[in-house]
């Protein structure tokens, strides 16, 4: 059974909701800003933070106050995705939701940071005051699946519920996993995407490893820029509603796009580092296109994983150049992480915007690109473009070596 996208929702550094995201992205703005210098060891650096407070929107304040930030972002994005797809799930006054007709819906979220802030709170109490001070209210939120589970609990969604981690490729990997579950018949509809925050302990560690962009220029130098010097951590929740084409047709929902092909590979490289060479990322792109039954020339654009890291952007540019072949001169390449920062959810944002671009006909621009790097022989999009988009290749490369490529295409009539 083919999986199609019929709705989406987001909580982003531009604000909550799809309109804020689309407006910010299409205007070519960047939500990356300077970080307050509150960490003891931190250098001046950039980040794309989601501003608090988040929600509660229509959710019960009583239920909301127990939730960690990732659960809040995920629940709001999930609710918007269901509403935009015309589903009926709603939060209930008592906290536990009434799925109604959408009770069969599952949730698959990718994350690498959910649970880390609650974990830090728990361990700070443990080490400062001892085990008797560990809170039974905090502990359940240290598990990374709290966000996906809270979507299920708050909205009454009783389908398959899972959380995956493939580092910075997690959100796209979640969409690929959800598409597989639908194709295998294990579920008919799944909310899929990513959620992440930028925990202070992790940002500190990254900063001390000197892999984050230093805030020495007036603005963040992002993807494919000649003067890029690292990435900016990002935050957000980006969720799409995937369902079988049959279910969408049955309930009269108009698909925005379909998941035409997915591929996941593992590239060699040192632990915790970006893929070391272009061979495996190139293979993921080619496999996804082959499984989609499309040629590179059919792509309206490529949503790249590039984030401003020296090696990542260079490796990906080479991989895309080789995979696209002669089409590389014509197929535009767009990278969102200059606008939204890097996170496990950033690649889900790229997939969400790709689905919208197929529905509405646009190519999103690459924010944070001032001086294109000379070694990048790709048609990188500076400003937003209008026009029909038949298919999009969404790419995600992760530290540790995982590479996920997904092709979304205009749904078959």
């Amino acid at each position, binding site marked *: 059974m083919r999986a199609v996208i019929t709705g989406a929702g987001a909580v982003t550094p531009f604000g909550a909701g799809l309109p804020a995201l689309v407006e910010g992205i299409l205007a070519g703005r960047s939500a990356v800003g300077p970080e307050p210098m509150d960490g003891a*060891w931190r250098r001046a650096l950039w980040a794309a933070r989601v501003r608090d407070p988040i929600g509660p929107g229509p959710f019960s304040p009583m239920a909301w106050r127990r939730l960690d930030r990732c659960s809040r972002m995920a629940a709001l994005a999930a609710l918007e995705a269901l509403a935009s797809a015309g589903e009926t799930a709603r939060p209930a006054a008592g906290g*536990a*939701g009434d*799925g109604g007709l959408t009770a069969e819906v599952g949730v698959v979220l990718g*994350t*690498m940071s959910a649970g880390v802030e609650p*974990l*830090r709170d*728990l*361990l*700070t109490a*443990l*080490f*400062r005051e*001892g*085990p*008797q001070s*560990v809170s*039974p209210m905090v*502990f*359940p*939120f*240290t*598990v*990374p*699946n*709290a966000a*996906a*589970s*809270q979507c*299920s*609990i708050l909205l009454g*969604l*009783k389908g*398959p*519920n*899972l959380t*995956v*981690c*493939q*580092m910075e490729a*997690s959100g796209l990997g979640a969409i690929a*996993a959800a598409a*597989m*579950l639908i*194709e*295998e*018949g*294990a*579920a008919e509809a799944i909310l899929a995407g990513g959620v992440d925050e930028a925990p202070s*302990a992790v940002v*500190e*560690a990254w900063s001390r*490893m000197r892999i984050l962009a230093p805030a020495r220029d007036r603005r963040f130098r992002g993807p494919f820029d000649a003067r890029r010097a690292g990435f900016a951590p990002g935050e957000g929740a980006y969720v799409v509603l995937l369902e079988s084409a049959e279910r969408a047709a049955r309930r009269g929902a108009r698909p925005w796009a379909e998941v035409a092909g997915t591929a996941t*590979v*593992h590239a060699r490289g040192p*632990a*915790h580092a970006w893929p070391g060479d272009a061979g495996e990322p190139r293979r993921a792109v080619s496999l996804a296109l082959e499984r989609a039954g499309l040629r590179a020339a059919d792509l309206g654009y490529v949503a790249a994983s590039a984030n401003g890291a020296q090696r990542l952007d260079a490796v990906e540019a080479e991989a895309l150049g080789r995979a696209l072949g002669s089409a590389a001169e014509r197929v535009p390449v767009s990278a969102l992480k200059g606008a939204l920062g890097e996170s496990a959810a950033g690649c889900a944002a790229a997939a969400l915007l790709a689905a919208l671009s197929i529905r509405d006909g646009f190519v999103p621009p690459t924010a944070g690109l001032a001086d294109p790097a000379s070694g990048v022989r790709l048609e990188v999009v500076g400003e937003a473009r209008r026009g029909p988009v038949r298919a999009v290749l969404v790419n995600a490369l*992760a530290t*540790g070596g995982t590479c996920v490529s997904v092709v979304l295409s205009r749904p078959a009539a």
Partner: protein
Amino acid sequence: VGAISALGANAAATWEGMIAGRVGIGPVTLFDTSGDRTHTAAQIGEFDAGRLAPARELRRASRGDLIGLHAALEAALDARIGRAGGDPRRMGILLGGGAGGLLQAEEYLQAALAGRRPAPSRALGFFPATTADRIARDLGLRGTCNTVLTACSSATIAIGMAAALVASGEEDLVLTGGVEALSRTTYSGFNALRLVDPEACRPFDRDRRGMSLGECAVILVLERLDDARRRGAPLYAEVAGFGIAADGHHMTAPEPGGDGIVRSMRAALRSAGISPDDVDHVNAHGTGTEQNDRAETAAVKRVFGERARRIPIVSIKGMVGHCLGAAGAIEAFATAMALRDGVVPPTAGLRTPDPACDLDYVPGAARRVALRVALSNSLAFGGNNGTLALRRLDA
């Protein structure tokens, strides 16, 4: 298969320990528990990590990385991966994870809170994808790499998804299973919830007082039957189907009627194309908490009706503890071995059944019984249920 658990440092010792009903739960020595309410867990004994990686790499590796690699190497050898060709680009890994890297991350934070400057690379091992990335790199697996994190059902769901990857033809071979290491976080967290038994846990027993935490790494190699036969790999069992379903109820308590796990078991039966009447063994989640044991017992009765009393239902957690993110892996391993050998391990610790738990939990000693199909259940924080349906290979 490859395994390291409190019962032994390989698959054979782990399985022999289960059949003997040996209890692997004892004093925790990995970290100080003097401030906790309890002091026992199913901790892995000494094992030789020196052969796993160069010394410099070992220093950076987390406990989860080390036991994961240890089990993965045993599994790769057992399955004769690399014999008769095989394309590493079509070999992947899909693990169930949890707190494998936490013990080291805790030390990083403890040092940072004390005003020291621990090496930042020590902080990154807690990322739950690290162990799968490391195994993929060290074994040269270049296909799918993914880690499922659904707390206590992680590995069950990972094995189901891995089977789907093989069945769909996306990969030829997938290493799957789970890795979990004891940590201060989970130990004091479950103690804060007052869910830990001060002694070895006693699933389904009237006098139970909670769960025992455990740690293990169990890796299963999944591939198509004809590929395995061609290479002469040992055959354990077939993954016939899997089911996943959410409670949508509560963060730490199962739905009391077992509604979520009922839907999960039924989804697994449907995906395997079998009826409840075909099932002759259930490896229960059976944590030894009142809520779990009663909800799961109710669920088994709802799925199997009158037959429920005639099906041996076993919890191995009285021997290997609750291995959280890897619990589903060691339980799937036990289920596969039970199918292969025609023997089910006992529910260790069970002496006087809870009146509300009135099924055949195989107390006392292992039992010889001809098996064809078995289910392995997992419940989890967040209500993330999963069920595997395994089939004996000559059935």
